[in-house]
Structure formats: structure tokens, C-alpha cells
């Protein structure tokens, strides 16, 4: 049996952090809606994605306990993001350079 050095750690989460993160997510949601009423041109999409990315990161780190997780989990997520990004970037490159 291989009990890897970097196996899942035992941790005890405190519920308090969940409520704090929930509040942060609500604030970010309100922010993104608010910003959408301001005319920023191309920046609107960037800001919206940045806020969404931040919210997603909060959910990943704290609700999904990524902050306590081992390196393999981080690599798995990085892998997913990387290949998703490849798919988007190379496809967009085709359309953008025709």
C-alpha cells in the first residue's frame, strides 16, 4: 500500500471561515453586477472574468479545501486549467489571425 508522503492531510476546518468566504462571495457578486452598469468597453469582460475568477478561487481554496490539499490536487487543477486554456487560446488564434 502506498501511503504517499503528500496524501490528503487531516485538518479541522472552522465553520467561521465558511461564513467569511460566503460574505466575500456576496460582496463580489454585488460588485460584478454593479460594474456591469458602468461603461468600460472591452474592460467590462476582463473585470467580470477577473471577479468570477476570484470567486471561483475562493470556493476552490476554502470550500473545496484546496488550501489544505496536497500537491497532486493542485497539479490536477492546474492541468485542467492549462488544457482548457490551450483549447481556447489556440482556437481563438485561428479566428483572430485569418
Amino acid at each position, binding site marked *: 500500500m502506498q501511503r504517499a508522503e503528500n496524501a490528503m492531510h487531516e485538518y479541522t476546518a472552522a465553520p467561521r471561515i465558511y461564513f467569511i468566504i460566503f460574505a466575500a462571495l456576496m460582496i463580489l457578486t454585488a460588485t*460584478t*453586477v454593479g460594474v456591469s452598469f*458602468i461603461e468600460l468597453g472591452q474592460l467590462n469582460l476582463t473585470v467580470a472574468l477577473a471577479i468570477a475568477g476570484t470567486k471561483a478561487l475562493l*470556493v476552490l481554496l476554502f470550500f473545496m479545501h484546496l488550501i489544505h490539499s496536497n500537491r497532486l490536487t493542485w497539479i490536477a487543477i492546474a492541468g485542467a486549467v492549462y488544457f482548457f486554456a490551450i483549447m481556447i487560446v489556440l482556437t481563438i488564434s485561428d479566428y483572430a489571425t485569418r
Partner: protein
Amino acid sequence: MSTDHAAPAHSALRHHFDTLDQQRDASLLGMWAFLVTEVLFFGGLFLAYTIYRMSYPAAFAAGSHHLNIVLGCINTAVLIGSSLTMALAVFAAQQGNGRNVARFLLATMFLGTMFLGIKAIEWTHDYEESLIPGLAFDAKIWAHEGMPPLEAKQFAGEGELFFVLYFSMTGLHGAHMIIGMAVMAFYLRPAWHGRYSRDYYTPIEGLGLYWHFVDVVWIFLFPLFYLVGTRGSH
């Protein structure tokens, strides 16, 4: 080989694992690997969205303005709230508090149902406004003042693409929610009867990962569908 049989193995330990720790590590890694596949699964639709939004920004903005931002907002809060209750369910499982596990799972299911209910209301509105491709889609409402007919038809087609993606992606998301809630229902009884404790709460933990992922997908769907094209000026 680390198993000494001084104490009987935990009832949840499967025969092909040596320890509960190993089993938990494997189960959680399995769930994360599954979520990786889900990223790519939704990812294909996000790719289609990206290309078409890049190509048809005006039609996408027009389509987005047809959506009800208030209901979208409420739903976002509801779903994030359900993530909160899910996280609390996992915490309760770790504490061995079976009753709370069941209560928080029920709360999550309740919020999830609320989300789906609001979605149903939205989709009913969309039907009434003829915005559902294939079922009830009125190309004429897309034409602007003075738009030549060919351009209007094209614009309507682009708008239809927005809604195809809207219903596909929120529909797929909703299907994932239904499956998640069905699995939650399945775990209610064992949870209530004290099945889960610090030694073994892996199913709830794994379910939590899944549910939070569903939340993350919505976190991206919301701005991409509801917040396209500044609303203030309209």
C-alpha cells in the same frame, strides 16, 4: 504492510485498500480527477461561447438584456448559499454530528431546489417571450429600427446562438445539480443514523467537492450570460 488486526477493520474499508486513509486519498483523488473531466466537458461549451461572443458581440449583448438580472442575482446568492450549507455538512460529518449532516444536506437540497425553481420561472418567461430556439423563437423581435431584412435575419440567427448556448449551458448545469441533489438524498439516511465521523466521511467530502464545482461553473455562467453589454445605457 501496515494493517495490524488488533482492531477489526472499519466497516467502510473496501477489501482492495489497506487503510481507510488510503481509501480516502484514492476516493478524493478520484473525485478531483472526475472534476477535471467536467472542466473540459463544460469547457467545450465555453469554447463555443467564446468564439461566438467574439464574433457577435452586439447580438450577445442584446440577448443578455433579455435575461432577468434580478433573478440571476438571486440565484447566484442562492447557489453560493447552498455551497455554504454543503461545506457545513462536510464539517458536521467530520465532527460525527450525523443529525447536522442530514440537516445541512437538506438545506443544500432546499436551496438547490429554489435555484431550479427560479430557473424554471426564468425559462417560462423566455418561452413566453419567444426566446427558446427550436421550441418558441421569434426572429422578428431581434430586428432594430431600420435594419434591412437580411441583416435582421442574420442578427436573429446570432441572437438564437446566444440562447442555444444559454439553454445548453444552464441546462447542463441544472442537470448536474439534479444529479447532485439525488445523490444527497441518497446519503440522508446513513448520515442521520451516524454513519459518518472523523474516521470516515469521505462520501460527504466527495459530494461536497462535486457540489462546489457546480457552484464554480455557475460563478462563470452568471456574468457571461447575464452581464453582457453594459446595462446602464439602456
